[in-house]
């Protein structure tokens, strides 16, 4: 931390010095207690995850013990073996379902968000304002309102109980268009103009001039979209009814109600489903953090 004395001139330092000398002891005590408080809060915040991971290594007998143990007495991998061998729980299939939906939605959102954001930022055409306001307005409508007709529309299109039912309706995403537009507004027009003079097609300008400048917002938006879809629960719960079509969050609730008396298995399943993605995204949280602070989006 920069101290005050580094920043002020010599005359001021003379005036401040006596007060500071008294304060040094108190300052150090303050720093230590700050770290102690933060460490305690951090431990409390991490505790549910720690408890889940520790419990996943306990035996069926130990997990039922009253009062519960904290550290597993005989750590075992049996719970994981049971889950991975369970023919009713083909985890690879559910990972594939979740990944398919999340990747397709992310790609679609990045494409439509960037190209429509580009059009709203850099072109003028009739109805532009009205259309943009409409897109902004749809963001204010809670998903609980549109999910009922959304279900009925998928029923008509015969997309219920189909992974495409989770992808097709979210092809055009209002939030993505808004974020990309805001970013593209700040990009200067010089390069596009000179590409135009050189005779490049409009599509080519989007692809080779505009898109390469969108790396940072695309990465952030991509991660947010991926996480949102990967964790989505309510909409998949409505759309998917057949077991083998389901995504990971739904399978996790199904598994936990099936094995409600075997929390050791449920905890191991939770670890397998929650932790890997958590790990991947913790490593790249810089992008997510940057995106959140850019947009304030949820």
């Amino acid at each position, binding site marked *: 931390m920069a101290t005050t004395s580094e920043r002020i001139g010599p005359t001021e330092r003379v005036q401040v010095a006596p007060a500071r000398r008294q304060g040094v002891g108190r300052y150090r005590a303050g720093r230590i207690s700050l770290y102690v408080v933060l460490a305690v809060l951090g431990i409390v915040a991490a505790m549910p995850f720690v408890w889940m991971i520790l419990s996943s290594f306990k035996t069926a007998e130990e997990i039922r013990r009253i009062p519960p143990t904290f550290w597993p007495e005989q750590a075992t991998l049996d719970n994981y073996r049971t889950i991975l061998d369970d023919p009713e729980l083909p985890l690879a299939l559910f990972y594939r379902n979740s990944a398919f939906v999340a990747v397709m939605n992310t790609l679609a959102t990045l494409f439509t968000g960037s190209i429509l954001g580009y059009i709203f930022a850099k072109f*003028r055409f009739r109805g532009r304002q009205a259309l943009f306001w409409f897109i902004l307005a749809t963001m204010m409508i*809670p998903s609980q309102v549109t999910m009922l007709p959304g279900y009925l529309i998928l029923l008509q299109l015969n997309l219920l109980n189909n992974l495409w039912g989770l992808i097709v309706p979210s092809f055009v995403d209002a939030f993505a268009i808004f974020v990309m537009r805001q970013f593209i507004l700040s990009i200067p027009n010089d390069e596009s103009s000179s590409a135009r003079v050189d005779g490049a097609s409009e599509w080519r300008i989007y692809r080779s001039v505009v898109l390469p400048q969108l790396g940072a917002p695309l990465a952030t938006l991509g991660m947010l979209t991926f996480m949102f879809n990967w964790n989505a629960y309510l909409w998949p719960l409505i759309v998917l009814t057949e077991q083998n079509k389901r995504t990971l969050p739904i399978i996790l609730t199904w598994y936990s109600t099936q094995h409600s008396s075997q929390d050791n298995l449920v905890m191991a399943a939770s670890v397998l489903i929650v932790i890997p993605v958590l790990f991947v995204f913790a490593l790249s949280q810089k992008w997510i953090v940057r995106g959140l602070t850019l947009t304030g989006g949820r």
Partner: protein
Amino acid sequence: MSEAIGVGRRRRWFGGREGAQKRFVAGVTLPAVAFMAVFSLLPIVWAFALAFFDFSPRRAGSPFLGLGGDNPFVGLEHFKAMTDFSADQPIQVSQFHTAVKVTLAFAFLVVPLNLAITLPLAAMIESVHTRVKPIFRTIFFLPVLASSVGVAIIWGFVLHPQNGLLNGAITRITGKTTQIAWISDPSLVYLGIPVALLAVLVAYLWQDIGYNLVIFIAALQAIPQSVKDAARVDGASAWQTFRHITLPLLKPTILLASILTMISAFQVFDLFQVMTDGGPQDQTRALSLDIYRNAFRYQQMGWAAAVSVVLFAIVFVISLAQTRLLRNRWEY
């Protein structure tokens, strides 16, 4: 040559290639408009229409969106029924009243508690050494990335009456075997609020504080150190600096964060469904859960649509307040 045509136009961009540009804009925009007509506009119009019909997806109804026919028009009946406070009100009305109460209590508790945790925490994390800052930030941010279903299951197990971590810790500390059913005993009420609702609240706060934390840390970093230094030189204590310098500068961010937090608190579904399933005795039956059950369990989609319109109205009023307040955001 494009220059020549472009001269005099407000935007030189359109110079000379208007045809190609128009085709490009139309080629992208028209499919998008067609798509949004089906997947954005239609659901909104249809949702509001449903609220005026006694609609069930099991009945065919008329060819036009299934409205009419076996799914008769009932006008404002659903909304009139919502204001029925008599003793013999239908069960769905009393469930709706419960849901409104639960949701309002939840949302209005979430916001102050969230801010009371995230603001000081952000200030603390911001003032530690840069080397350890990312560690703390990651710990508090991780739950944001976790699936809320996973969060619900983890917390359900932490609060398990016999084998849970919380009761186990209380037993250790007090020496008395404690088996409190935090999320399933309807008789547990604290300050007029069901303990089960408070349990969901704690889990939600745990999952949600990472958002505001990140936003506040960024806002704190945006305040120039020289402003704070000036106050310290003038003899202000750390608390006075925070109270009279930092806090006022953060006000726009706090306002935005609190409104976003409240809007999302009104729409929480996953925790209520997985952690408590609305129980015990509907004590955690939130509006989103009420809508889901009416629509997809009881097949009462008309009623569910009417409830969703009420939810929309609440969120809409708050969003309006947001824009109104944020318009004055630069008064400092």
